[in-house]
């Protein structure tokens, strides 16, 4: 273990990028889904982390309010944004009362910062996604305006969901920056920047379209990347069509409202038919207005699908990371092989590989034995270093694959559970809509029968 520096980033829980010492212990914690306790042996020795008591109690997190605020941004321009209240409660005993331990306000950009940080420090984890920044897949009645109260409300729920996902993740829940996000209002952003995570970030991860020719990727990751692409595509399509379906359904229901008015007008000129028509018209009005609640409920279903649309991206990122690591590994191996080759040639005097030095030597004359010795020495040092690096890269790579695959398996279970629940709740919504429809038309039919 390297000497401790006042570097918060390293006070944090085991990251696979760390040298090997504690990784195994960390893995046990991964398998243990109970976020309640962190056993002492898992804590990397720093006794000042009294905050670890935090994890011994069950916590409840809620994003309970949203508030419109105005302030000045970095360019000193007036801007309006929404702030969200995050409340953390601890529960001492099961079914016991919860005590409010922390409460602070955060805006969306701070959530984004938290997530970007987690992406860098936990590349082997499928990091929960944030709710969408801008409203997409809207059907006409829904506003695409970020300030619209319905959008803000759905975003509040999405942000709460995000925090709960992290809190229930066996690895992510232990992260110190996450803890501070919930507890330290002021200065939190600075703290995050101080970890230097931006320097650690692999910019290549963002370059989604760049291809790296990897010779021996782990087939599982290749397949998974393909799956995540397909999943993104199919869920996007689904959400788009669903929005159109909602639009049309809205139209059907609302036009029926016109019956209400015309039946009422017609009933005025009728004697015996009047009452029946009038009351039937009322039911048509009820029918027309029922669609608003129905479609609002359906938005929750759409949000559940959206979460997995964005999760697909997170999945893809993990696969990408493997690809890059493998690429680096292969590049390093290639480089080492070529250096070894050069060394051998210099030593034996045969030139099989093309090298600039070789060419120039041919053109401008042989080098001296001393020069040659010097070069061999340099190469041998480089080779030795290279072999060390390759060894550690290999190990890193295997660790990554092991940890990442463990989290992927966890994710798959979660996804299957969640989506099944989502489909069930969607079916329940449809059943409820059908029952309401039957009720209204049965009532109308009765009114008609009295005409």
């Amino acid at each position, binding site marked *: 273990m390297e000497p401790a520096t006042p570097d918060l980033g390293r006070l944090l829980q085991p990251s696979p990028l760390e040298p090997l010492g504690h990784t195994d212990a960390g893995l046990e914690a991964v398998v243990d889904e109970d976020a309640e306790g962190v056993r002492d042996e898992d804590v990397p020795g720093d006794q000042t982390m009294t905050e670890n008591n935090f994890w011994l109690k069950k916590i409840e997190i809620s994003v309970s309010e949203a508030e419109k605020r105005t302030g000045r941004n970095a360019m000193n321009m007036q801007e309006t944004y929404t702030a969200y209240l995050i409340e953390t409660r601890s529960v001492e005993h099961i079914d016991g009362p919860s005590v409010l331990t922390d409460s602070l306000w955060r805006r969306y950009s701070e959530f984004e910062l938290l997530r970007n940080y987690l992406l860098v420090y936990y590349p082997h984890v499928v990091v929960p996604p944030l709710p969408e920044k801008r409203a997409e897949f809207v059907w006409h009645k829904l506003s695409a305006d970020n300030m619209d109260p319905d959008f803000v409300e759905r975003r509040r729920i999405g942000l709460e969901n995000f925090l709960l996902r992290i809190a229930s993740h066996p690895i992510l829940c232990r992260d110190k920056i996450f803890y501070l996000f919930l507890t330290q209002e002021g200065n939190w952003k600075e703290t995050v920047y101080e970890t230097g995570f931006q320097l650690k970030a692999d910019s290549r991860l963002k370059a989604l379209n760049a291809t790296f020719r990897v010779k021996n990727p782990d087939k599982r990751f290749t397949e998974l990347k393909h*799956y995540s692409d*397909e*999943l993104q595509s*199919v*869920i996007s*399509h*689904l959400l788009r*069509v*669903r929005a*159109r*379906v909602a*639009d*049309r*359904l809205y*139209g*059907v229901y609302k*036009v*029926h409202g*016109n*019956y209400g008015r*015309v039946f009422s*007008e*017609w009933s005025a*000129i009728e004697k*015996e*038919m009047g009452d*029946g028509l009038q009351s*039937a018209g009322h039911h048509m009005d009820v029918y027309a207005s029922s669609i608003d609640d129905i479609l609002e409920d359906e938005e929750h279903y759409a949000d559940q699908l959206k979460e997995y649309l964005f999760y697909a991206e997170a999945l893809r990122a993990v696969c990408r990371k493997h690809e890059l690591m493998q690429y680096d590994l292969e590049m390093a191996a290639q480089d080492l092989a070529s250096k070894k080759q050069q060394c051998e040639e210099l030593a034996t005097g045969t030139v099989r590989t093309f090298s600039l030095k070789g060419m120039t030597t041919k053109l401008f004359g042989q080098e001296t034995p001393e020069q040659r010795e010097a070069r061999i020495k340099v190469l041998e040092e480089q080779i030795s270093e290279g072999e060390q690096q390759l060894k550690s890269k290999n190990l890193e790579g295997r660790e990554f694959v092991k940890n990442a695959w463990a989290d992927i398996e966890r994710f798959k279970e979660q996804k*299957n559970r969640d*989506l*099944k629940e989502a*489909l*069930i709740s*969607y*079916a*329940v919504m*449809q*059943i409820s809509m*059908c*029952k309401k*429809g*039957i009720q209204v*038309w*049965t009532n*109308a*039919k009765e009114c*008609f*029968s009295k*005409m």
Partner: protein
Amino acid sequence: MSGGLPKALPSTGPHSLRDMPHPLAGSSSEEAVGGDSTPSPDLLLARSFADKDLILPNGGTPAGTSSPASSSSLLNRLQLDDDLDGETRDLFVTVDDPKKHVCTMETYITYRITTKSTRVEFDLPEYSVRRRYQDFDWLRNKLEESQPTHLIPPLPEKFVVKGVVDRFSEEFVETRRKALDKFLKRITDHPVLSFNEHFNVFLTAKDLNAHKKQGMALLTRMGESVKHVTGGYKLRSRPLEFAAIGEYLDTFALKLGTIDRIAQRIIKEEIEYLVELREYGPVYSTWSALEGELAEPLEGVSACIGNCSTALEELTDDMTEDFLPVLREYVLYSDSMKNVLKKRDQVQAEYEAKLEAVALRKEDRPKVPADVEKCQDRMECFNADLKADMERWQNNKRQDFRQLLMGMADKNIQYYEKCLTAWESIIPLLQERQEAK
């Protein structure tokens, strides 16, 4: 169909027509007055059929036989009888079995008209003939000409305005058949129209075209008289009840028009909804192909949406075929009724003008000249017939709309029930726990 004096049916009341006084004899008040003169032959034709078939609840003389108005009050009483079950009916007409005929000049559809009757006006108890739309059109025109004081039911539209519809498609032909069936049934139910000679010919003649060419001049007396009513007289004051009917029909037609537009719009929106659903369902199938544990649930949802789509298509088809045409029929009905009202106005106007002319001439009263009397009778006849028909129409309208709207509600209930069944049946599939591998 033989001419001459009609024979009394055994089921008629105790008095034959011969015993009934001349309707126009005596005073021209609307009150029933007795008289003794023999009915004139041409009048017999007009009135005989209606009175012939009377099944009077009390037996005995049909009340108020002296004036034309009497037949209307009889009609009123008859309405009760007509509403009873088929046992009191003696005429049944059905339209079915559409067939396509391809000739060198044209292609057209004929329908089979089946008539069953015990009425003496029919030589045989049963008839089966084939008629095409043209023939129905001819019949309607003839009825309008010969029974101008009555409301003639409407025919489905002659030309299909929305050029996209196929005249020979199953749906179009079936819709038309239903409307034509309705048309004939309405005439059958009418105590005066059902005895009309043209109607009889339509139901029975082997070769209708031959009859058409003959140009049957079997106009009723009323038909004759109204035919000759010249227009251009200005109406003084419309009796309240007819003004009210006129206003009612105006508003009624307006409201129906609105309902027709709403219904069409709903169907349009439903079809567009259906189009989206047909794309929506299969996406779940596509997704299902990517998944392992979720494959069955997703496929289940896809199938479910497919079932709902089918149910929706059935709903829109039903509404198009059964709901819209009936609405349109009633709009046509009220249009033709307004025309009858106009004619009535004309008859009244002529009478008033003639009366005024007489008053100005200051001739001896109380002897009212015959032609003015005729005008008055004509007017009162018309009024009575129209009133009776209006009441009958109102009643039928109420039944028809009750049935129509209940039908609409029913179709929607069935649609939702089908969808409900589909969604309820996949819940267990969704909740299924996969066996641990």
